[in-house]
């Protein structure tokens, strides 16, 4: 499997009146062709900003990609011009957003919104694009696709809208699909259907998926490879079996322990004590040490580097030594 996208030392900062927020701080990751990469972390850890940086969808000002490279098909997207990036958006890389309720324009029909993307990127006229839009709607399992194509978003349920979003995102056969918490706003049965759909489409088209989520269940079901982020940095990276079987970073361990397990008689779920640090006032040393039960002296002084401890397993923690 070749590399499709690789992010190297990406730094995306937000320049606010109160100071600089390092939303993404020196993040490197790689997505291979046909692979699903799960990006996990709490709200505000920079996972969405990382994904939005790829397509330069960061509102600027205040946000800015300060340094780093995003190599996609041999090209550095951070240096791409507006018109170059527009040709990639919705075409080679497309996005599904979290809120299907608000992510579709309420005054245009579902069909119009899908057709728009098809006409823009593919050599088709409106009639052909309409046929293709109906096909896409059928593909994502929407019944009565040739009626739904003329429906407005408010006439569809949340799950249907998210299917329509997926149809829109997949319409131009993207190489990479960025799914930013695609199931968070949906109820559980619909979640499972949407995940099945995404997996099915991925197998059919060999599209890579960057799956952003805070739901470890979703990761276990979908991802091949997992990246755990905390406060703008990657703290652990491994393939999905390794992460669940053998988590190393205290934060990852904490996350896994705070997952509910069926048939376990427990009053409360475990949780990681404390809160995500204030992005304007990050602690010295390891960002996680105030909440870490295994914090040592060195953790308060020195920031750990992400290093390989096993084949394909990287962690940024002073507890572990790099293996060469």
């Amino acid at each position, binding site marked *: 499997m070749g590399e499709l996208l690789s992010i190297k030392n990406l730094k995306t900062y937000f320049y606010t009146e109160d100071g600089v927020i390092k939303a993404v701080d020196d993040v490197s990751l790689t997505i291979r062709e046909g692979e699903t990469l799960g990006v996990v972390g709490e709200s505000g850890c920079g996972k969405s900003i990382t994904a939005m940086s790829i397509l330069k969808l960061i509102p600027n000002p205040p946000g800015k990609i300060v340094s780093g490279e995003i190599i996609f098909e041999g090209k550095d997207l951070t240096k791409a011009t*507006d018109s170059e990036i*527009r*040709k990639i*958006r*919705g075409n080679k890389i497309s996005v599904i957003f979290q809120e299907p309720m608000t992510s579709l324009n309420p*005054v*245009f029909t579902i069909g119009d919104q899908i057709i*728009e993307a098809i006409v*823009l990127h593919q050599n088709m006229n409106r009639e052909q694009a309409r046929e293709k839009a109906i096909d896409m709607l059928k593909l994502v399992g929407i019944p009565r696709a040739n009626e739904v194509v003329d429906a407005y978003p408010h006439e569809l349920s949340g799950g249907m809208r998210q299917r329509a979003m997926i149809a829109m995102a997949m319409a131009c056969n993207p190489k990479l699909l960025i799914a930013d918490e695609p199931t968070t706003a949906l109820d559980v049965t619909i979640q499972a259907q949407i995940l099945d759909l995404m997996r099915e489409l991925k197998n059919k088209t060999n599209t890579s998926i960057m799956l952003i989520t805070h739901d470890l269940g979703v990761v276990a079901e979908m991802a091949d490879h997992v990246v755990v982020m905390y406060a703008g940095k990657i703290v652990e990276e491994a393939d999905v079996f390794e992460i669940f079987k053998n988590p190393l970073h205290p934060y990852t361990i904490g996350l896994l322990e705070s997952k509910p397990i069926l048939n376990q008689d427990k009053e409360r779920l475990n949780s990681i004590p404390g809160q995500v640090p204030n992005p304007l006032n990050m602690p010295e040393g390891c960002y996680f040490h105030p909440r870490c039960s295994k914090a040592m002296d060195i953790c308060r002084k020195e920031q750990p580097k992400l290093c390989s401890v096993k084949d394909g397993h990287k962690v940024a923690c002073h507890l572990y030594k790099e293996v060469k």
Partner: protein
Amino acid sequence: MIPVLIGVSIIIFLIFQAAPGDALTGMMDPKMSYETKQKIRKQLHLDEPAIVQYKYWVQNVIRGDFGESFYFKQPVGRVMNTYIWNSFYLSLASFILSVLIAIPIGVISATRQYSFIDYFFTVFALIGISMPSFFFGLLLIKWFAVDINLFPVSGMMTPGSTAVGFEKFKDVLYHMVLPLTVLTLGSVAGLMRYTRSSMLEVIRQDYIRTARAKGLREKVVIYKHALRNALIPVVTIFGMWLPGLFSGAMITEAIFNWPGIGPIELLAVNNRDYPLLMGINMLLAFLTLLGNLIADVTYAIVDPRIRLK
């Protein structure tokens, strides 16, 4: 709509009943003897109770007869017809111009929030809202009519002009420039701020991000996806402007001596011309209701979420 209109007619009738004097005091020779006055009062049913008088008035109004203006000695309908269209041309031109100027400015202001150009238009809007029209009108007359003699001081046509067709249109347009500027400044300011705030709200929505993520050009994102949504609240206030198109701009029309309905209203008040005032008020009430109806219909057209199945 009909019950509201009936209510409005009762209120208008009561207000003018309560106003001092009656038809005779405005219409008749003051030296007329008391007996003659009483006789005429009886003829005009003015001696009967208010409810009976209301019945007579409504019967006539339904037939389109608002009675005779005391001051002009002409049927109210004819007086209104003479002047109201002059007001309408001026107001309509101002309305169209305001929309054409205000909406693009509002969009530019919103997409470049806090930039120099946004501050510039904000200051412009503030001036436009705070500038009294009588003062601005006089300033324009001083600068453009008196000092450089570019536009006429007042009126709607060159006196004695017999031009017809396009020549007449050009002459009217030429006379319209200054009053139009005064009227438009005020409404552009308000409408532009309204568009700006509506647009600002829309461009933060998720579906704008979706549109960008599709690879659309920024122009398409703003002028198709965002503007279409931002205009929903703006378009619906257009219906409310309908009575304004016919009510005339009293002060501006008076300053520029524009033969519109505005100065006529003033004249009617000063001369206790009750039939004319009641006629104008009834018409405006009707147009207000019609405007509301149009606003509701427009809302349903521009916003698919409102459309009835």
